[in-house]
């Protein structure tokens, strides 16, 4: 068990994977000498050389597509898209190529690649560098979507992603890189596709992932002082989606809140809410409530940026209102 950061845990997962499997290569902008825009790949170039840690020019469609081809040809590439916002440039390669190759070609070949990227607010990076776009990938059959919310998952969920036979869009959160936490690399890796109850409780189920997990846990702590026990579920992967854990909880609590940083309308909270409603209709005592990002682009002004996504105060308030 070590005390480390989310950033370092990610780097360690890559390092261990590269040590174990010579076909793992890293491709992306500034992953080498620079060490990654957020420092995740620091040291890997020095350790594994430039044949395996491959700096790309600024050609998102090109290098993501190259990763797709490499994955079809015996490598296990980890492509790094510096910001998830840039997926707009590479979306054809992600959604029309990587996601569909196995199906379209009748199962002959898969695309075992991980597309590491990061999203979210928290650094006043403005409209084109702060989005939460996991909902785009969620609606593309063939793509797995993973979003680590803890230091331990930064390591173990990335490790698990690296064992998938299908393309995984692995979305980190820019505000979590500095988060500290415990990690035991000798533990088994994340149970792929299983959500985790991060805090048990009997009054209301809070379903979330990524940075909002931290917010939800803080809100759960707040309401605990008022005798309200919120059960906080960290989905970890949106595809696969672990319905057993979610519906097990909601049938118990009768109340559900979904918290995402992604915009409300059309975002992943909609899917989670719709599914809870379908699966647990008869158990619901109150409406399922979505607490999500405002339906606006992300503004640069820090005060506005902070209010464009859910706050701990708002989550706290809504839990209390829902459980009276």
């Amino acid at each position, binding site marked *: 068990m070590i005390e480390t950061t989310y950033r370092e845990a990610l780097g360690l997962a890559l390092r261990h994977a590269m040590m174990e499997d010579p*076909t793992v*290569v890293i*491709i992306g902008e500034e992953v080498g000498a620079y060490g990654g825009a957020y420092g995740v790949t620091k040291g890997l170039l020095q350790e594994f050389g430039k*044949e*395996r840690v*491959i700096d*790309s*020019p600024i*050609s998102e*469609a*090109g*290098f*993501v*597509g*190259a*990763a*797709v*081809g*490499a*994955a*079809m*040809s*015996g*490598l296990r*590439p980890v492509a790094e898209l510096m910001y998830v916002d840039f997926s707009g440039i590479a979306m*054809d*390669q992600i959604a*029309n*190529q990587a996601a569909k*190759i*196995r*199906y*379209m*070609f*009748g*199962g*002959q*070949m*898969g695309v075992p690649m991980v597309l590491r990227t990061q999203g979210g607010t928290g650094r006043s990076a403005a409209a084109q560098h702060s989005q939460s776009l996991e909902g785009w990938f969620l609606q593309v*059959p*063939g793509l797995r979507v993973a979003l680590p919310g803890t230091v331990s998952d930064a390591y173990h969920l990335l490790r698990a992603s690296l064992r*998938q*036979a*299908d393309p995984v869009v692995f979305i980190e959160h820019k505000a979590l890189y500095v988060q500290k936490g415990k990690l035991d690399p000798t533990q088994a890796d994340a149970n792929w596709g299983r959500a985790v109850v991060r805090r048990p409780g009997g009054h209301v189920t809070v379903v979330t992932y990524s940075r909002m997990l931290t917010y939800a846990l803080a809100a759960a702590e707040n309401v605990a002082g008022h005798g309200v026990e919120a059960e906080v579920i960290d989905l970890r992967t949106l595809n*696969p989606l672990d319905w057993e854990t979610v519906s097990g909880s909601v049938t118990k609590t009768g109340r559900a809140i979904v918290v995402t940083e992604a915009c409300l309308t059309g975002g992943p909270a909609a899917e989670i809410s719709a599914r809870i409603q*379908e*699966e647990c*209709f*008869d158990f619901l005592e109150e409406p399922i409530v979505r607490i999500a990002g405002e339906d606006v682009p992300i503004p640069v002004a820090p005060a506005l940026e902070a209010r464009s996504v859910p706050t701990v105060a708002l989550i706290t308030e809504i839990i209390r209102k829902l459980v009276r």
Partner: protein
Amino acid sequence: MRPTKEQSLEVYRRMRRIRTFEERVGELFVRQQTAGSMLHLSIAEEAAAVGVTYPMREGDSFTTHHRGHGIFLARGADPKRMMAEIAGKADGYCRGKGGSMHIADRTLGHLGANAIVGGGIPAVVGAGLSYKVLAKPNVSIAFFGDGAMQQGVLYESMNLAALWRLPVVFVCVNNQWGMGTRIDRAAANTQFHERARTFGLEGHVVDGADVFAVIDIAERLVQGARDGRAAYLSVECYRYYGHARMDKSPYRTPEEEAEGRKQDPIQRAITRLREKDGATTGEFEAIDAAIAQEMDEAVEFAINAAPPPVTDLFRDVYDDHEPAPEPLRKRLERILTTNLTATN
């Protein structure tokens, strides 16, 4: 290349197979036995297919655009399974999931035909990268049309291949037209190989009516690529017919078509074979007859093949070891049973 008569006849045979195959695809369509109407025939592009694939070896790979039947045939495809795929049948290369625009075959190095113009190009960069990293002696070749010369991803891919010194060749099958747009209405400069050179590639252009010229340059560029010099080649030809099966090309003049259709690589090969190698009508007829029979059989195979079972709908979205998506009807029944029962 100074081919022997036998080699020349083999080259002719490969081209004829493509031509006859494509003619049969047209008939299959008329007989309403294809999956859809998005069929793009590579008639008169046979020299590009046969010539460029000529120096390819086992383990080499390639991707193609939507007009890719001929290329894959040249690389050894089984016309039965191709035709079955075009008909959307379970015995097709892709189990009837892909159709004409998405034929692929991993075992023959076909990483897939693509219906996104330019979409399959960067994959060869990745394949080339894998050869370099894994120290394999292979090359990967991207085939695409002149339309893709206006897609940005091509230039990104060319730059990556040159920068990383990958065993990759980019081949533009320049049939002068992209749907209803002639290349001079698509590009301000149509000397595409010049563009490639400024991205650091070997860049060349060759007459696509002369299959032996194509073989010559392809041998050189493919060898260069094996040695790490990425290359680009324009093969100049002419799109004989409409863009897809429904299109009668009303946007171009009969004069232009007549002129363009003079560029027939098969006729050119026949003439050469007759003149240089003394090939006889009988020799051609024998080859043609065998091919006609092979292709007739392919058509019958495709027509008689079974469509994929409905359960295949949910198959191969993910790896076999993973649970398949839950079919909607099952899901709805489950939801309604659980909830409606509970309420009553």
